[in-house]
């Protein structure tokens, strides 16, 4: 089925359940689809107009109505219940696993700037370092990210991780993922965010624990974050954190 | 043509007015809903009732509007009995009270904006820079306040215009005990505007 649906390879822990649910729904719908369409075709052939023949005069059948209403209702409610559970496991902050690494992903037209805690392991301190459009995370570690936006709404999209979450200016939106294998994957923007929306892409590198700590150390030594241009849109919008905290008099 | 054979028992104009008012309800629901959402999401951008707004003045204004509803009812009652003079008198009263309401609202706006309570962020900050004393709440408060009350004010003004139209038509004897649809619809609209104001007053000024 995968090559039919062309799902990208899955490399996150919750990607598996999502995919199996996708395939469950896919199979249900395929069965229903062929059932309906074949029946339709049969009716079209069997009851095509022929001279001197009158159609059956009936206004319907209550038992049938009840049966197919109930059947559909049961199916969708079942789907609803199972999908709600999985949904909350992925999206509800109360159910997030204990993070091994916390990052801020701060979006702006048209960059994904990932803030790393730096030496003191604390975000929002002087020694944080920022990587533009290139994330690196350790494998098999739950990574918790806080999504922020400097200007418009962006959508943080990791196809291979089955992760998508909007970044809304003025909000701090939590998300998490845990990579299951090392490699280099795509970071995309899934919400129209302006002229260069299609170029708002980056890469995420999943490293082994050792590689990551080495990379982290090297980054802490390297250059600071590039500042914004004077009078550019990025500081016009102001820091989302500040905006969230309210207006300063 | 006025009413179809298997009709609802209400003539078209009246039914149409009811249906129209339904959509008006949704319009104000949208505005008020937006206000409530914003106020809950950003409490520090809003002031408590009475801190900025002049509640007593508006309370008086509310009282006037309620009176105008009463006079409107009187006008309708009068024409049902075919009392032309009564109709004209009460319509006139309603129109005038309506104008008083709008007038007071204009005064309120002028005072508030001079105090620096403005809907627009730039103006708001400009006022702060020019040493105007700090207004509680922010431009967001102003924006929601002026939008909601402004749209209501527009409805009242339109109502007043229609009232004058109805009044002059009444003076030409345009209505009778047999034909008072115009007055009735005018009343429906006016009571609706009144009702909306009572809700707005409660939510914006009191809560």
């Amino acid at each position, binding site marked *: 089925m995968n090559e039919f649906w062309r799902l990208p390879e899955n490399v996150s822990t919750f990607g598996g359940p999502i995919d199996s649910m996708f395939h469950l729904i896919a199979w249900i719908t395929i069965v229903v689809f062929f059932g309906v369409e074949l029946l339709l075709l049969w009716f079209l052939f069997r009851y095509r107009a022929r001279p001197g023949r009158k159609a059956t005069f009936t206004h319907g059948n209550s038992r049938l109505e009840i049966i197919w209403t109930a059947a559909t209702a049961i199916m969708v409610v079942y789907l609803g219940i199972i999908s709600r559970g999985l949904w909350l496991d992925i999206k509800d902050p109360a159910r997030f696993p204990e993070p091994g690494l916390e990052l801020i992903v701060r979006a702006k*037209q048209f960059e994904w700037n990932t803030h790393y805690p730096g030496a003191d392991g604390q975000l929002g301190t002087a020694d944080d370092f920022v990587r533009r459009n290139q994330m690196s995370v350790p494998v098999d570690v739950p990574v918790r990210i806080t999504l922020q936006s400097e200007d418009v709404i962006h959508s943080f999209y990791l196809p291979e991780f089955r992760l998508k979450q909007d970044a809304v200016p003025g909000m701090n939106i939590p998300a998490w993922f845990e990579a299951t294998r090392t490699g280099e994957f795509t970071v995309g923007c899934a919400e129209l965010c302006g002229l260069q929306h299609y170029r708002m892409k980056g890469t995420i590198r999943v490293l082994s624990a050792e590689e990551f700590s080495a990379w982290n150390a090297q980054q802490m030594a390297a250059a600071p974050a*590039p500042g914004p241009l004077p*009078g550019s849109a990025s500081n016009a919008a102001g820091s989302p954190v500040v905006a969230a905290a309210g207006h300063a008099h | 043509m006025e009413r179809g054979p298997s009709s609802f028992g209400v003539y078209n104009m009246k039914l149409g007015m009811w249906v129209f008012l339904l959509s008006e309800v949704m319009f104000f629901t949208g505005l008020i809903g937006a206000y409530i959402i914003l106020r809950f999401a950003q409490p520090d951008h809003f002031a408590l009732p009475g801190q900025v707004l002049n509640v007593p003045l508006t309370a008086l204004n509310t009282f006037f509007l309620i009176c105008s509803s009463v006079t409107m009812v009187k006008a309708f009652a009068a024409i049902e009995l075919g009392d032309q003079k009564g109709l004209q008198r009460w319509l006139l009263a309603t129109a005038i009270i309506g104008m008083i309401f709008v007038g007071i609202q204009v005064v309120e706006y002028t005072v508030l904006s001079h105090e620096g309570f403005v809907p627009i962020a730039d103006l708001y900050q400009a006022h702060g820079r020019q040493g105007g004393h700090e207004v509680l709440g922010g431009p967001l408060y102003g924006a929601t306040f002026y939008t909601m009350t402004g749209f209501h004010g527009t409805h009242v003004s339109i109502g007043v215009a229609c009232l004058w139209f109805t009044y002059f038509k009444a003076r030409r004897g345009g209505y009778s005990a047999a034909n008072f649809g115009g007055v009735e619809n005018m009343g429906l609209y006016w009571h609706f505007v009144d009702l909306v104001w009572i809700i707005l007053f409660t939510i914006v000024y009191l809560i």
Partner: protein
Amino acid sequence: MFDNRASKLFALSLVAAVAACGGGGDAGGAGGGEPAGGGAPVAVANAGTINGTVDFTGTAPANERIDMSAEPTCEAKHPGGPMKETVVASNGKLKNVFVYIKEGLTGTYPAPSETVTVDQVGCHYTPHVIGAVVGQPVAYKNSDGLAHNVKAQPTNNRPFNISQPNNMTSAPQRFASAEIMIPVQCDVHGWMEMYVGVVAHPYFAVSGDDGSFTIGNVPPGTYTLEAWHEKYGLKTGQVTVEPNGTATVTFAYDAAMANAYVPLGKLFDPHRHAEPAPRVVADASATH
């Protein structure tokens, strides 16, 4: 709804009006009303030249290294590793300083027809600082073969934002009023930035690698020059240009001025060409 158009029309009519009376005022003025090129010599009666240098004392701070790894094609064009061009100073001379005649000019100077072109190579703008006459066409060229966008954020002109998904040259942009300076940036490559100085006459220049600049074809007279640098801010100087003579001027910048005030989007005009309505009123009341 049509606010930008309305305001633009208004501004233009204003330009016309002011220019007209200005032109009338200095009928005898040298070079008045004659077409002038962006720095290119045209016939001006016994025109002189201003030669100058921009000196720089102290050690220039190291420019910020750009992380271009996300854009390999660009990175490849910077053998020494991509750097920002905030301060380009070598043996005591400062590059990319915008110098223009601030006061002392009379007459009106129609926009030259030739286009000033800014190229985008290796995810850098070249040149990094340009000047243009009010109304002169400025075009942006993309030679990188990958997506750039050119976002100008003036204070007194209409902002624009042009995408260039591939090699191409943008439609020429014209700035309707004088402004020192207009920041231009690329949203795809946050490090890409350059500055445009828009003045109401052709008497401006940008200092080169050796810090030198030349403003040619200047009508005789005494002028106040102003120099602008994106990090070290403003300097002013006086020159007197003799008929057919050459005046020299030197601006001395100094590493100690690191946190100088750097104006952006400041209005400038020797005798109030092309200023938006509010400013005209304000200045008028100030000067009379």
